[in-house]
Structure formats: C-alpha cells, structure tokens
C-alpha cells in the first residue's frame, strides 16, 4: 500500500511538473514573475480528491520546489508559494464544507491563488497599480479553474482504483 501510494504521488508530481512547464511556454499576460494560468492545479486537485489534504500538500510543495529549481528562480518560488498556500487552504476548507463540487472548489482555489499572488506583489511594489490587471486575470483563471475542476470530476471516479485499500 505504502509503496503504491508513493509511486502514485510521484506520478501526480510528474503530471504537475509537465503542466507547469507547458504554462511557462504560454506568454505571461500579467507582469508578475511566477504568475501562471493554473493548469498545474489539476494534479493537486486530483491528489486532494483521490487521497486527502496531506497528500495534496505534499504534491503541491514538491511541485513548487522542483519547478522553481527547473524553470524558475528564487524570486518566482515565493510568488508560486504565496498563491499556492492560499489556494490549497481554500480548496481544503471548501472540500470539507461540501457546498460545492470539484468544479466550484477548483474555481475558488484558482481565484485565491490569484489573490495571494497579487497581495504579495502589491506588498513588494508598495503600489496598487497592479490591481488594474486583477479583473482580467480573475476572468481567465475562473475559466481554467472550471476546466480543471471538470477534468477532475470526470477522472476521480474512474481513477478510484488508485486508492483502493482492499486491493493490496
């Protein structure tokens, strides 16, 4: 069981890394280093729904560290982290509350990921002019968040065998 779980969590990290890399190829719509449209959140959501919050936190942290080392800088590490911590907290809380399905949780996560990054950027810049871009990025991330949530919604029942305790 343990080994199987480690292997699958590694697989989730790999999927998240590939998505993070794909995101770096898309031109940045906002001048925030480390600002991403949030495709990698797909793998974290999948870990959250197939396992539990602990596994999602592990996958998210490993993904952020590795993608900062491979495609980013120390600078982008903190931006990813500021968004991810807020987003994952919100996702875990709203999954517990059970008012929304995966799609709603994913959208809320994406929105708070955005807000977390903007808060940090505004603090560093000591200026609110960044807020100009917030409506555009929010519209964008709601759409990608809904898309991610929909993918996880279809996949989470088909992939249930991953976390089947009786099998091993």
């Amino acid at each position, binding site marked *: 069981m343990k080994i199987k779980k480690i292997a699958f969590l590694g697989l989730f990290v790999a999927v998240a890394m590939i998505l993070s890399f794909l995101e770096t190829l898309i031109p940045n719509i906002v001048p*925030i280093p480390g600002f991403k449209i949030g495709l990698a959140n797909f793998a974290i959501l999948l870990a959250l729904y197939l396992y539990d919050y602990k596994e999602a936190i592990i996958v998210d942290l490993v993904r952020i560290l590795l993608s900062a080392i491979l495609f980013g*800088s120390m600078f982008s590490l903190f931006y990813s982290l500021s968004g991810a911590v807020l987003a994952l907290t919100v996702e875990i809380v709203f999954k517990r509350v059970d008012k929304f399905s995966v799609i709603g949780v994913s959208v809320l996560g994406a929105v708070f990921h955005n807000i977390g990054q903007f808060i940090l950027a505004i603090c560093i810049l000591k200026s609110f002019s960044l807020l100009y871009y917030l409506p555009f990025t929010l519209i964008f991330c709601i759409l990608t968040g809904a898309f991610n949530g929909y993918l996880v919604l279809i996949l989470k029942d088909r992939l249930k065998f991953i976390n089947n305790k009786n099998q091993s």
Partner: protein
Amino acid sequence: MKKNDLILIIAALLLLIPIALIIIGSKDGDKALVKRDGKIIDVIDLSKDGIYTYESESGYNKVEVKNKEIRVNEADCPGHDCVNKGFIKRNNESIICLPHKFEVTISSNDEGYDVVIQ
C-alpha cells in the same frame, strides 16, 4: 456538478466582465508616472517621443515613448516581463518590473475621473 458551482461561476463572471469592459474602454492617458519602491521618481510627457533610462542598485530599465505610447524596451531584470509587456497607452495601465520594484503608470492631466456618478 452542483447548482452552487454554476451560481458561483456565473456570479463571478457577471461581476468581473463589466469591470473589465470599463477598464478596456478607458481613455488614453497623456503622461506617465515612473515609480520606484512606490515613490514617484519621474513624470514623462507622452506627447514627446524619447528614450529615458532609470538606474538603481538593482539594475536598469530603459523606457521608450513613441506615438503617445510607452514601453520598457530594455532591462536587465531576470524575467523580462516588463519588456514583454509591450506598449501601453490607456489611463491607469501600468508596466511593472517586480525584481527592480519599478513601475510606469499612465495617468491623465485632468486628474482622471473616467465616470462621475451623481
């Protein structure tokens, strides 16, 4: 998919799209405020073409004004997000270089009220 999901997405989009449209429709500005660390260090008149260089201990940004538009055309920051941003001209739009804490924000002389609600 639950009903709450749809309500959340539609409500958020209904709130954000009008804001985005208002921003897109805003007028062109006629001056640019150059700020570092939140403080205004220069004001550029957008009606005159020219190239300005701003240096600090963290690095330099070269700003170019052309046809009432402004851009950062050269910088030594790691990500080059400010250069990739390209030209801007709308009121309140800005170019930001986070590694240098440098920003260029478009502003308007008539103290920019786009809409006055009475």
